[in-house]
């Protein structure tokens, strides 16, 4: 029973990181109607930016997190401006393949800069804490709190601001939003910056939790992100948190009771099963996708 509860605790912390990455992925989808295969690269860029920054800011976790977030936002802006908008009007699958090309490019540019070998942060994971039935390190708790905070902020941003209203309008119909006087291009730009920022932060948190990472960090996390997004329903930011919870718990529980090497096997089988049995219910059809109010 204790093992089970500890597993749940780790699962929650995994789910927290996953939800950050997945909510960013789903925001990108909501405004641009494309699945961004280079999304994982935002995480990698964030992680490496924090790695470069930690030397300058003398192991300050907060500074590293800010640098990761800023780098992710810049990457989001650059991808939208340099690629997504250039491919506007092309089929979703064409853009998908193009972002796949971007993923390869970014991964290898990082390999050239930082080398293919893994690097490590110098941050401490903190002490172990018993919180209720769970067993968490200080950084686990920080991760979970920051994920909840980001979830709250995104909710407020989408529901209570003019920006959020514009995002919701664009996600339903970009052309209609445009003729209603919404500056769609600018709002989409801002959304990509926001998504990139969240993803960059997620990348830092992920890298810090794993402890050691390389240029493929984000790419290998991407399919997990997509699974969580699908579980929640793509293009629906709030449901994504539920999806992340499902995926985080499933892989931790399955991994604990078989072998941690097979964690991802279960995640991908879950993805295939979701596609097989809930392709419409969970995976909302593009024409029916809305950001749920």
């Amino acid at each position: 029973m204790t093992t089970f509860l500890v597993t749940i605790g780790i699962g929650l912390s995994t789910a927290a990181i996953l939800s950050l990455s997945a909510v960013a992925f789903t925001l990108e989808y909501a405004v641009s109607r494309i699945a961004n295969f280079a999304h994982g690269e935002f995480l990698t860029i964030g992680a490496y930016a924090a790695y470069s920054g930690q030397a300058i800011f003398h192991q300050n976790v907060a500074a590293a997190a800010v640098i990761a977030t800023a780098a992710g936002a810049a990457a989001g802006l650059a991808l939208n401006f340099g690629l997504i908008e250039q491919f506007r009007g092309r089929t979703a699958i064409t853009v998908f393949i193009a972002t796949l090309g971007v993923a390869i490019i970014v991964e290898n540019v990082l390999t050239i800069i930082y080398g293919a070998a893994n690097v490590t942060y110098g941050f401490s994971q903190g002490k172990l804490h018993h919180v209720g039935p769970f067993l968490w390190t200080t950084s686990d708790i920080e991760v979970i709190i920051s994920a909840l905070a980001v979830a709250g902020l995104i909710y407020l941003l989408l529901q209570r601001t003019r920006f959020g209203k514009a995002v919701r309008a664009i996600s339903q119909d970009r052309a209609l939003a445009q003729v209603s006087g919404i500056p769609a291009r600018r709002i989409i730009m801002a959304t990509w910056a926001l998504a990139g920022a969240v993803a960059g932060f997620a990348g830092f948190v992920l890298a810090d939790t794993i402890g050691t990472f390389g240029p493929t960090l984000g790419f290998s996390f991407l399919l997990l992100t997509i699974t969580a997004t699908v579980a929640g329903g793509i293009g629906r930011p709030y449901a994504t948190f539920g999806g992340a919870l499902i995926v985080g718990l499933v892989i931790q529980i399955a991994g604990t009771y078989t072998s941690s090497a097979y964690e991802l096997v279960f995640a991908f089988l879950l993805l295939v099963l979701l596609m097989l049995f809930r392709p419409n219910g969970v995976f909302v059809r593009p024409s029916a996708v809305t950001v749920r109010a």
Partner: protein
Amino acid sequence: MYWVSVVTEAGIFAILALGLDVIWGWAGDFDLAFYGYLALGSYLTFVLTIGKPTPPVEYILGYHLPVVLAIALAMVAVVGLAAVIGAIALRNLREIYFAVTTLGAVSALYLLVENYTPLFDGYNGVYGLINPGQTALNLTYNGYRIFFLGVVLVLLLAAYLIVQRLSRSPFGRMLRSVREDERAAAAYGRQVFSAKYRAYLFGAALAGLTGGLFAIFISAFNPSAWTPQELLVIYAAILVGGRGNPRGVILGVFVVYIGFIELTRYLPSPASRPDFGPAMRQILIGLMIILMLRFRPEGLFRERPGLDRSPIVNGAPIPASQRPAAPPGLRSDEGATREGGASEGGMGRWAGGRRRAGKTERAGKRE
């Protein structure tokens, strides 16, 4: 001898690209599981020919079959795997959903093979298939390599002729009409799932064959030989050559593998940065994919409409703008028509099958 091996490799991948082009170029399904079929074909060819494993090495089967029979069995198994994945992924899922599902399936298999050693010895992989039949053929090592190049080129020619013939057949045109607009194709009486499924199995069979040839070519196979990046090179080659055009696809593979990869071998690779050369190559592949998609999505050689040269006046096709408009429901959407040459004619080009009634209909039954 160096060039023999380069051309052999390009020839093997050209067969693979022909198979992938049937799935992606004709049927329009962006399949990310495809390299897994090559991998399975390769693994099975090994375990069926190299005999029992000696501990601590472990793998399944371990027979001493003749290599030709082993490749044939491997192809059957690969088609079986594709039948399962295809049945799941092709039934209701399209485009990105299809791509993600196939990626999920192949990633699960990849991790399984990598971590579960009794299957194919995990990360170490299988090896030991060195020039099968060399003594029987009474050849030197180099002579065998040249002989093998000949075998690969003959198989490539055979695959090309089959694919080329299929491309112009009612089956090829049906796949293209399904790709352009599924609902319209279904309205014309096409079985959308079955058409796509058959295309998928055909492509997988070619991938299985390629796996067998690849096993002989490199005589060792482990998980690092089938990372997702490998598949991207094939996609890049198809994009360069011309999606949907068999001749273009083969040319694309030779351009990408020989022209491109061989030229980038001479990139500086300083000792302090051993990753520089390979990384640079991957970057160029990525750039090539993006630039081709952006500026010339139809590739160097456009897809040809085959026998169905419907609206032609004075030897020149009528521009899309001057053709009678299709009923609204039959139009491909804006996105699809912007794909460039391949889709320019929309339904008009590929759905012509039924319009040229009699002959096509009879031909259709023969499939």
